[in-house]
């Protein structure tokens, strides 16, 4: 298990929290909460060690496409980058759908 922490510049504030996913094998949960800060903060707990760089790449790509301003909490049980991206974008869509 490894804890990771990231910050990203983001421009699109969210106005209510959203939760997606389950900490099942090969899966993860993503929580986004509104924030007053000017950048998004991410706290990640991951079951697979040694993937910090991969996480950074996934997040950089995500924020380049969807610059959501929020506090993120992520609990990951060994998801592939594809699944991580799916959950992040599902959370993004859930926010849109509810708006």
């Amino acid at each position, binding site marked *: 298990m490894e804890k990771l922490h990231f910050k990203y510049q983001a421009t699109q504030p969210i106005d209510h929290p959203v939760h997606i996913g389950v900490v099942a094998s090969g899966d993860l949960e993503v929580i986004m909460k509104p924030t007053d800060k000017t950048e998004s903060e991410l706290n990640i707990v991951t079951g697979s060690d040694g993937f910090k760089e*991969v996480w950074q*790449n*996934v997040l950089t*790509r995500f924020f*380049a*496409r969807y610059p959501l301003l929020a506090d993120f909490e992520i609990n990951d049980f060994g998801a*592939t*980058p*594809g*699944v991580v*991206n*799916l959950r992040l*974008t*599902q959370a993004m*869509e*859930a926010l849109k*759908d509810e708006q």
Partner: protein
Amino acid sequence: MSEERNWATHREAKARKLAAISSLLDGKIAQTKDAKTLLEGLIAPGDKVVLEGDNQKQASFLSKTLAAVDPEKINNLHMIMSSISRPEHLDIFEDGIASKMDFSFAGPQSTRVSQMIADGTLKVGDIHTYLELYARLYVDLIPNVVLVAADKVDHEGNLYTGNNTEETPVIVEAAAFHDGIVIVQANEIVDKVPRVDIPSDWVDVVIPADEPYQLEPLFTRDPQNINELQILMGMMAIRGIYEKHNVQSVNHGVGFNTAAIELLLPTYGEQLGLKGKIVPNWEVNPTPTLIPAIESGWVKSIHSFGGEVGMEKYIAARPDVFFVGPDGSMRSNRAFGQMAGQYALDMFVGSTLQIDQYGNSSTVTNGRLSGFGGAPNMGSNPTGRRHSTPAWQSLRPDNDPLGKGQKLVVQMVETFGSNKRPVFVDSLDAVKVREEAKLANVPIMIYSEDTTHIVTEEGIAYLYKTDSMAERQAAIEAIAGVTPVGLRSNPDTVKDLRARGIVAFPEDIGVNRNQATRSLLAAQNMEDLVKWSKGLYNPPAKFRSWS
């Protein structure tokens, strides 16, 4: 004038050999115990031998017998096999019985094949696509002996090959009409065969096998193992490719991605109102995951390369859809299937283990020389094609007066494999394997130039729309996730490509990611498939559904 040339040396050699073993035959029928003696009598050192190792069906009795012959008597054979599937297919090289191999597919033996090539134990003639290999049987690889498998054989020697006819006709014909020797292993000798798939006068020797030929359910995918990424990709493919291009005829490679599409047609496809509008005609093995689509009226016709274990009764009960003989059982034919797949289809959809930065793909990875299956024939644009269909025409470039359409060749991959290794790479492992195995060509399964679409969990790259290699690379990068290739992607370029319809994300084609759940599948497990089939589908034991 010199002495008249003898124009029938092959025939005479064959006659001599058969005469020498005639005491072991009752008509054409031999006894199981004499199998080894027969092979030692009928095969000569250096012969070209076709051993029927098909995709599904294996002449396993004859392959075991061949592995047991005396290498002093039989050696240096040149084997021609579409599929290297069983350990003894390679044991014969270790023991010197054979020395050279021309083949298509080696998936189940890929580690040993690569080792033996590297060690020089096995010399490769070439690695072929199926159609090429069949074609060469009639040109420069005409066999001396063929070893094939049949279900039932009558006392005359007529063969019934039934559901799994597969390659038997194309192999037998090459030998039967060029004085090669045709040796058949039979599951059963019967008084009357249900129908004649191969007539007896093409056959020389029939040996009852000690056990039925090996038959693998290679095309069965348990819906239980389809994940949400595959479902999302399936939704994108249906919207962004099947619907967009009005695809009428298709081949699906074997895999969970395409199984997902098959199970989404009756649900998601139905929601989109596409029933009756897309994919009525299929060239595909009878994969059980197609059952819900067939039952709900999506499918008009299916022709198959081979059979599939457990599907026999279901197929027999759906003769409007499948190719079924007057006896009531299915007939398959891989050679015709590959021909249809190459020339008659709008689209091929498959998957792969690696795609390079230019869009070339391969299933050959380090240490595993797996060869090709049917993908290269079906996953290529046949430039000899002349007939037009709406899907084919939809890829026609606007700016060329002589331009013509193109087959849709779609690769669907997750950006990372289950081992967390990137699927998109700068250079294919196949390049290195070519050097190690000293192959003439890099074993590429589908070339970039033939690949019209790539689908990943991020989106679709419409490669046929790109007008330069640089643009093609940028489109691939846009959907290649955080692989080394994807990391080169530039956000501004991606915006431009999306605006021009060269790249589409789910939201660009109206696909809602939150809809991508397993509940959307028409069947979630094997039990559901059995229910859909009204009890006609009988899954093999290893696919019993345990939830």
